[in-house]
Structures are given as C-alpha cells and as structure tokens.
C-alpha cells in the first residue's frame, strides 16, 4: 500500500472577490521512501495542495471542498485536529521556504530543536539534548556543541535551513514535505541544502515531497515529478522520462524556458501570455490559451489526467490522442 494516496483534492479560497480554486481535483500517490517533486509556477497550487494535507491552510477563507488523502490508513482531510497534531511534526515533517522567518527569534536553536521531541513525548531532558545535538551535527552545522545554544539570528540563511531540516527530521517522520526549501537561499548554498535533503532522505528511507518552481532542482533529487498548472496536474512522470520526452506542452515550454539550456546571446524563451484568472472556471485545458498546439477541443474540454504507455500521465488531449510527440528536450542540467 502506498504511504500517501491523494484522490480528487479540491481546495478553494472564498474571498470577497470570488472563489479562488487553488487546487482543482489533484490526485497522486507516494510510496515509502519515494521522492516526488511538485513543479509549477507561483499560484499553480503546489503549496496549497501540500498545506491542505496537513490542515495548514487558513480556514476561513480556505476550504477543502472534496477529496481524500490516505496517509498510512488515516484520511488526513477528515481527521480531527488532535489526530492531525499527532501526525504533524511526528510522522510528517515540514520544511518551509524562508529560513529567515521560520525560526522563532526568541528561542535558542536547542529549545526549538527539542520541541518536536517534547510535544510528541519522544524524549526529554538530557536525552532530548543529546538527540538535538546529534541532529544538528547530522545536518552539518560546524561546532554544534556551542552553536546549539545560539539564537537563530546568529546563523546564516543556509545554516538556518539546516536547522529547519534537523527539526523536521528529528522525530523520524515517514514523510518529509519541503516547500521550496532552497528558493530563499544563495545559489551556492542551494546545492548544499538539496544534497543534504537528498542524503538524509535516502539514508533514512523517508518519503519526500519536494515543492519547487525550478525543474532542475526537482529533476536532480526526485524519482518522480508532478507538474502543476492553474490548480491541476498536467503531467506526472519519472524524472528521467520527463526530461527525455515531456508529455505535455506546458512541461516542454517550462524546459525550453530554462536559461541553462539557451545558447549565450540568444533571447530567452518565454511562454507567451499569462496564467488564467484563478477565479474563472474553465471548461477545457487551462493552458490552452497559451499553447501553440491547442485546438478547439482543448478549449472546449473536458480534460482528464490519463495514464500513458510510457508509465507517466498527461492531461494533454492531443498527447492522449497521439497527435503530438515531443522529442527529448535534452537533459541539460546543472551538473
């Protein structure tokens, strides 16, 4: 059985100006020890989807309209707050985007590191201190014995993110959710943090969901990639396959837009147009207005995510009909 199985998740925000359908019928599954990357631009619903799982979206205005999320036998979407509290931090660890603001400035690193242990009753006193110190060493904070008594403001951004990772993993969770863990960091530090997450996760056999808007980041670390656009999943595929042969025009366009792929001096490729207004209900494919391959059927809809022979899934009508085929936008990654 899969560790996490999300079916038909819909999350909407009821604002004064209308209903924003941030996540619109999203389904995916995650095996134990597997790494899933969720890629999409801002507002594509990737963060909201994950926050919905942990019951972390502000309610109101947010509302989970339908769906289910089986996590090891518990439906996260229909669990009582107390059940969720026991899962958060204990069985699902979370790393946030901005390490500058995700640590409490008034508590020492140690006080924050031991917090998950204390509240979930895993350890206390000297034992908690020992575990916290070990966790800090594990994530590569130098001089951990001394640094553990420091305050967050005495740490650099990269070091703080290391602390966050240690905190997320200290209770030995089964699933780690990292919401853009490297976006706020220096480019040089990004690679280190990604390596750290990947290493920790492989060593411990923790399943992970890595949210990012950077295809390169995701492809390096993840087994499988899920591409989201305007609240829906447009494609999922093993990361190798995704780069070898994208199965959705949006994925292809994303790859074409990567600066690393372009020859020096040429103009950068950009996807024309803007993402659709999230308040509008679209009948067809949300990417159709910007898609160079769109036909009338794409606009008319309906569209579904359907499995493809290659093992992935695509929501593109024309791919499903076999009318389109993208050959490898070569895998030109950071390495």
């Amino acid at each position, binding site marked *: 059985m899969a560790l996490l199985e999300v079916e038909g998740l819909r999350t909407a925000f009821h604002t004064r100006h209308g209903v924003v359908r941030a996540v619109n019928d999203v389904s995916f599954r995650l095996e134990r020890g597997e790494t899933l990357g969720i890629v999409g631009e801002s507002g594509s619903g990737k963060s909201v989807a994950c926050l919905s799982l*942990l019951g*972390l979206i502000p309610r*109101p205005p947010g509302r989970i309209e339908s769906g289910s999320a089986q996590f090891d036998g518990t439906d996260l979407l229909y669990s009582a707050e107390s059940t*969720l*509290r*026991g*899962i*958060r*931090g*204990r069985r699902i660890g*979370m790393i*946030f*985007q*901005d390490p500058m*603001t*995700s*640590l*409490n*400035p*008034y*508590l*020492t690193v140690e006080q924050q590191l031991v*917090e*998950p242990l204390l*509240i*979930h009753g895993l350890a206390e006193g000297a034992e908690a201190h020992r575990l916290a110190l070990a966790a800090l060493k594990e994530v590569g904070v130098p001089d951990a014995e*001394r*640094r553990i*008594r*420091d*305050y967050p*403001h*005495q740490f650099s951004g990269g070091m703080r993110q290391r602390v*966050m990772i240690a*905190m997320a993993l200290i209770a030995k969770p089964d699933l780690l959710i990292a919401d853009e863990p490297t976006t706020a960091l220096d480019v040089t530090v990004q690679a280190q943090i990604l390596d750290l997450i990947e290493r920790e996760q492989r060593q411990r056999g923790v399943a992970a969901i890595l949210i990012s808007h950077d295809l390169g980041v995701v492809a390096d670390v993840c087994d499988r990639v899920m591409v989201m656009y305007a609240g829906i999943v447009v494609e999922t595929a093993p990361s190798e396959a995704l780069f070898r042969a994208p199965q959705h025009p949006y994925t292809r366009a994303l790859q074409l837009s990567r600066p690393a792929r372009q020859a020096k001096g040429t103009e950068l490729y950009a996807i024309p147009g803007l993402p659709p207004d999230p308040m509008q209900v679209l009948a067809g494919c949300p990417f159709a207005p910007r898609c160079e391959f769109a036909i009338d059927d794409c606009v008319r809809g309906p569209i579904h995510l359907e499995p493809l022979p290659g093992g992935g899934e695509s929501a593109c009508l024309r791919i499903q009909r076999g009318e389109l085929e993208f050959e490898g936008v070569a895998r030109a990654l950071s390495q």
Partner: protein
Amino acid sequence: MAQSEAALAAFAPEPGRSLWQDAWARMRKNRMAVFGAIALAIIAAASVFGPLVWSHAYEAQDLVLGASPPSATHPLGTDKLGRDQLARILSGGRVSLLVGIAATAVSLTIGLLWGSIAAYFGGRVDAVMMRIVDILYALPFTIFVILLMTVFGRNFVLLFVAIGAVEWLTMARIVRGQVLALKRQEFIEAAVALGLRRRRIILRHLIPNVLGPVAVYTTLTIPAVMLLEAFLSFLGLGVQPPMSSWGLLIKEGAEMMEEAPWLLLYPAALFTLTLFSLNFVGDGLRDALDVRASRD
C-alpha cells in the same frame, strides 16, 4: 568605519547566553537606562525603608508649626498641619509605587492574554472580544470607579482593581496588533506544522515576541496609573488623608503654591524624576529585549 564596526561588535551578543543575559548586557551599555534604573531603585528603596528609619511619622501633626519652610529638623519643610514633608513623600511613594506596580500587573496580565487570544483565533472570536473592549472603553471611568466604591465600599485594594480593569484595554489592543502581524510569520506556521497545541504556541511563541513593545507600554502605564491614582485621590475616591500619595501631595502643594512652594516642588520633582526614569528604562528594555536588533 572602524568605529561603527566596534559599535556593532559591542552589540553582537556573545554566543551561548540566555536571552536575559543578552538583554542585560545590552541594557548595561545604555547609559540613560542604567541611570533610570538606578534612580528608580533609590526611590523605591527610600520609599520602602525610609519611613522605617526616618524620625518623623507621616501622620504626626504639629499645628503650632503649620506650613514651615525646609529647616534642620524638617529638611523638606512641613505642610499646613505641620506634618513632616519628607516623611509624607516617603510614605506617599510607597502608595504611589504600589498602585503603579500592582495595577499595571493586573492590566498587563489581562491585556496580554486577552489581546493575544483574540488576535490568534481571529474571526468571530476576535470580533466579540474586541467589541467587549470597545464597550468597556466607552464606559466613563469616573462613574465606573464611583460605582465600585459605593457597591464594595472604600477599599485600597479596590483601587488597584479599578485602575487595572481600565488600563488593560489599551494593552489588549496593542498586543492584538502585534500578534496579528506575528501570526502570519512562518515560524508560527512552522510551529503548527510541528504539531504544537494552540496554547503552547500562544505562550511560548507569540507572547515572548510581543514582549518588546509590551515592556515599553508597561513603563508608560505605570506613570499613567500613578496619575490616575492622583486624580482619584483628588476626587476623594482614592487615598484618604492622613495617608499620603504623590498625587495627593502634589494636589495639596498646588493649593498652597504661593505661600509654601516647597510643598509642591519636592513631590512634583520626585514624581517627574520617577516618570523620566521609567521612560528611560522602558526604552532601554525595548532595545535590550529585541534580539533581532543585533542582527545587522
């Protein structure tokens, strides 16, 4: 350049010290705050221990003497009933400081909890709690106190309660504003994601982060409370003669300003000094308690 680096180095907390040690180190570097703290300590010590040592009792009258200027036996003079002014200032300090501290403590506790709970839960809870604050704000203070006094009788403790019950309203509003800004910070969300209970989030993560502004407002509340006490005493609702308080002494001094200026001068000077000191300490506290101030 070298100077500013030295200044920065001076403010960088040394590693491995507690928040309070850090705050203390920063506080010591602030000369005005240190001056204020020392002045307050002397005033408080004099008020607490002074009446025990001073040879004159605050209520002992010498009607023949009347209002006399400062002399060898009465260094700060006497009031119109011939009571020693120094003794009255010292014992008045007891009352004023006690009222200031006790009423502020009451307002601090209620305001801090009320404001942070309202802001943290938000929505309907927030609306109801803050409307209650609005309604209490609209209640005329004097009438409220008179009501209390007539129902429960004239009582010293009631004075604290009455003042505290009014002063917490502003505190609640200040705390609410702070918490509203704070609760969208990622570390609060991170705390929820770690599985913390709301109570623990409020007590451990929210309240310490609002202590800076609260410390400043507290040092402003103490003088405000002392002024309120003076006002109530003036109306005959507060401290009753022969007991004294600084408010009462200033009021009596003001009545005899032309014939006996020393009666106004000394208590007013002491009161002013206390207020200034409290403000300096408040400023110092705010800077010292803000661990983020040393970030850059």
